[in-house]
C-alpha cells in the first residue's frame, strides 16, 4: 500500500543548491495543503561531499524515501545520479544534469571519472526512463550558472503532483529579488527541456 503520493530523491555535490530545490517543493506542497516530509544533509558531508535530500509529497511518515521507492531521482551531477540510483523505483524517472563535478579523488589522479555512457547504462536498467540535460549551459543561457538547480527544478515540475504556479510562488519566496528573473527563466528552460 502506498504511503506517499510522490517520492523524490535529489542528489548532488555540496554547494550545488540541492536544499533550495526541496525547500521550494516543500513550500509549494504546504501551499497545496498537502502533508510534506523531507530529510537533508548538513554538517560534515556538505564540504564538497555527496549530498542527498529526500522529499515526500502527500506523506505523513518517514522523512526518507526507501531504497527502490523513488518516483523521481533528480541529479544535479551525473556520478551522483548513479551513486544514489538504488533509491529509484523500477517505474521511476531519473532527471540528470550531465555536467560533472570532479571529486578530489579524480583530480589527484587516484580514480577515473566514468563516461556518460558508463553511467547511463546501469542507470537506465534501474528505472523506466532517464532524461538528461546540460542544465549548467541552460542556466548560463538564463543569465547565471548558479541557477543550474532551478533549471533542474523546472524539469522536475512535469513529474510531480504540484501545480506549477505554486512552485513559481514558492521559488519567489526563496530566491533574492535581484536574481528572480534569471531564476524564472532557468525554470522555464528546464521545463521546456523535458517537453
Amino acid at each position: 500500500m502506498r504511503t506517499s503520493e510522490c517520492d523524490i530523491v535529489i542528489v548532488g555535490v555540496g554547494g550545488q543548491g540541492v536544499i533550495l530545490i526541496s525547500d521550494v517543493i516543500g513550500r509549494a506542497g504546504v501551499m497545496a495543503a498537502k502533508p510534506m516530509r523531507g530529510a537533508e544533509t548538513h554538517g560534515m558531508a556538505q564540504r564538497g561531499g555527496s549530498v542527498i535530500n529526500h522529499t515526500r509529497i502527500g506523506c505523513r511518515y518517514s522523512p526518507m524515501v526507501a531504497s527502490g521507492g523513488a518516483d523521481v531521482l533528480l541529479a544535479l551531477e551525473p556520478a551522483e545520479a548513479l551513486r544514489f540510483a538504488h533509491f529509484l523505483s523500477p517505474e521511476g524517472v531519473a532527471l540528470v544534469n550531465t555536467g560533472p563535478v570532479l571529486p578530489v579523488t579524480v583530480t589527484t589522479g587516484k580514480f577515473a571519472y566514468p563516461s556518460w555512457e558508463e553511467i547511463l547504462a546501469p542507470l537506465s536498467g534501474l528505472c523506466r526512463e532517464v532524461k538528461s540535460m546540460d542544465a549548467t549551459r541552460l542556466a548560463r543561457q538564463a543569465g547565471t550558472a548558479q541557477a543550474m538547480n532551478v533549471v533542474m527544478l523546472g524539469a522536475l515540475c512535469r513529474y510531480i503532483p504540484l501545480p506549477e504556479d505554486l512552485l513559481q510562488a514558492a521559488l519567489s519566496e526563496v530566491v533574492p529579488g535581484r536574481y528572480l528573473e534569471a531564476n524564472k527563466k532557468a525554470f522555464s528552460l528546464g521545463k521546456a527541456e523535458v517537453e
Partner: protein
Amino acid sequence: MREYLLGNAAIARGLLEAGVGLVAGYPGTPSSEIIETLVDLKGDLPLHLEWSVNEKVALEVAAGASWTGARAAATMKHVGLNVAADPFMTLAYLGVGAGLVVISADDPYCHSSQNEQDSRRYAQFASIPCLDPADPQEAKDMAAYGFELSEKFNIPVMLRPTTRVSHARADVEYQYAKCLQGQKQFVKNPARRVALPVHARPLHTELLEKQAKMEAELEKAPWNKLQLRGSTGIIASGIAGIYAEEAIRDLDEDVSLLRLGCYPMPHRLIVRMLEHVSRVMVLEELEPVVEEQVERVARKVNPTVEILGKEGSIPREGELDFLMVRNAIARMQGLAERAPRSSFAEKILPPRPPALCPGCSHRATYYAMRRVFGKKAIYPSDIGCYTMAVGMGTVDTCLCMGGSITLASGIRFAGETEGICASLGDSTFLHSGLTGLMNAAYNKARITVTILDNSTTAMTGHQPHPGTGVTATGELTVQVSLEALARALGAGFVETADPYDMEATMDCFQRAKEFDGLSVVIARQPCVIRARRSGGKRKVFSIGADCGGCRVCLEFGCPAIEFSGDAARINNLCTGCGVCAKI
C-alpha cells in the same frame, strides 16, 4: 501558522511559543540551527541568545536564568552533553526556577560525530524526564511542553531529537511567540541552590520520589499512543514509531502498536500491550532502553511473551529506516522481505568524501607543519573541518573537543622522543583547549600546539565565538586575543603566522620545533567560505605552458588542481591563495 520547517527550526518555534527568555548553546551537528533560527526570529522579544564557550557553560548559564525566573534552554549535540554532564547530573537534584529544557541532539550513524551515544541513557542516569520526538511537529510541541513539565515537577527536562528529526523537514503547525511578563529575580534558597552534602541527600530522595509521579503525568501525554489489534505487537520509541506505522500500512498487517515518546515510560500502557499479545518486537535506535524496561515488566505480567529486539534483528548501532523496520516486521509475521536495490555503482564510481575546500588555509598549515616536523613526528589533532585532513599525515588522533593538547602531553610524558605537534581550531581551543594548554605549561610538556585560526566555527556553519569579537546576535563585543591567552596560560613561545605565506609559516614552525618548552603557533587566515561570502576576491591562479607534469602539486590535494594528459591545470574552483605555487 503552517510552514515547511526544518526540525531544528520547529524546535526554535516551540521554544518561542513557550515564551523562552534565554537560550544558550555551543554549535554542533545536528543541533546548531536551533539557535541560528532563534537569532533570525528574535526581533524585539525579550530573549537572551548566546553561543556559549562550551556546553557546560551553556547549561550553567541556562540554569542561572531558570533560577532567576526566566524559562531557559541549553542546546548541544549528544557529545556536548558529556561536557555539560557535571552541572546536568546535579541540576536534577537542585531543580529549576522557571522551566529548564536541555536539548541534546543525537546522531545515530555518526553522520557528523565521533560517536553515536544515546542521550536517553543520560536522562535515565540523571533521573530526569526525556522527550523523544519522532518528527518536526512533535519536536516543536515537545519543546514547548518541556517547560510545563519542568515547572510542574521542579526538574530539568531533556528534549532528545536525532539527526532525522533535527534535519528532517515537515509541514509544522505553530503559534506565535509568547512573551512572559513578571519579575525576574533570583530568590535565595540555599537548601535548593547549594549542593552541600546536607542538602543533596534529601534532594536525592525527593528526586527518586518524583519518578512515579512524572511517569503518571507522562502516561497521558499525546506522544504515547496505544493501538491494540492483532496478537503480535510492536513497541517503538521516537522516530522508530513513524517507521513502524509506515511499515504496518505498507504490509497491511493486523499488528498492535505502542508508540512511545516520553521517559519515564508509561508503565500501564506497556502492561496493556504485554497482556494483549503473545509476541512483541521492540523497535528503537541505539540502546535497548525500552527493551530492558519491557523485559522487566513482562517478567511480572506475562512471562511467556516472546520479546524480539536487539538480540535478534534490530541493530544496536547505526540508524534505523523504513525498510529495515518493514523487513523486521515482515520476518516476525512470516512475510516476504523486500531486498534493498543495488546500483552496483561502487565498481565504477570515484569516491567523493568531504574534503577541505579549495584555498582552505588548514591545508597550507598542515603542509608546512609536515615539511618542518617530518614524517616521524606525532600529530595529535582535534575536532573540526581540519579532521578531514587525515590523509595529509598530520592527523594522528581525534578523540574529543580539546583532546589534542592533552593527548600530546600524555604522549610526551610516556616517553615519546619524536617531535610532537598538536593542532586544533580556534573555536575548539576556546571550547576546551584552554585547560589543556595550561596543564601542558604547568606540567612542563615539551610540545608544539598549533591553533588553526580561521576566525569562525566553520564546520557547524560559521558561528561566532569569543575570538571573533561578535556575539550570536551580531553585536560587537570584546575580542579575546589568542596570543595573549596562550601567553597567560604559560606558553613560553607564541608566534602568529599567515599560512598563505608558506616560507614564513615554515620558519615559524622551525622556531617552535626548536623551542625548549611549550610552543604555540597561531596559523591565522579567515575561512575561505566566509571570505568568499564577504566579497573578498583574489586573482585565480594559473599554470603556465611549461608544466613538466611532475605531479608534486597533486600531493597538496587541492580540489582546484586537476591533472589531465601530462600536465596539471587549475580549474574554476581556485580561490587564488597561491600556496600551491610555493610547494
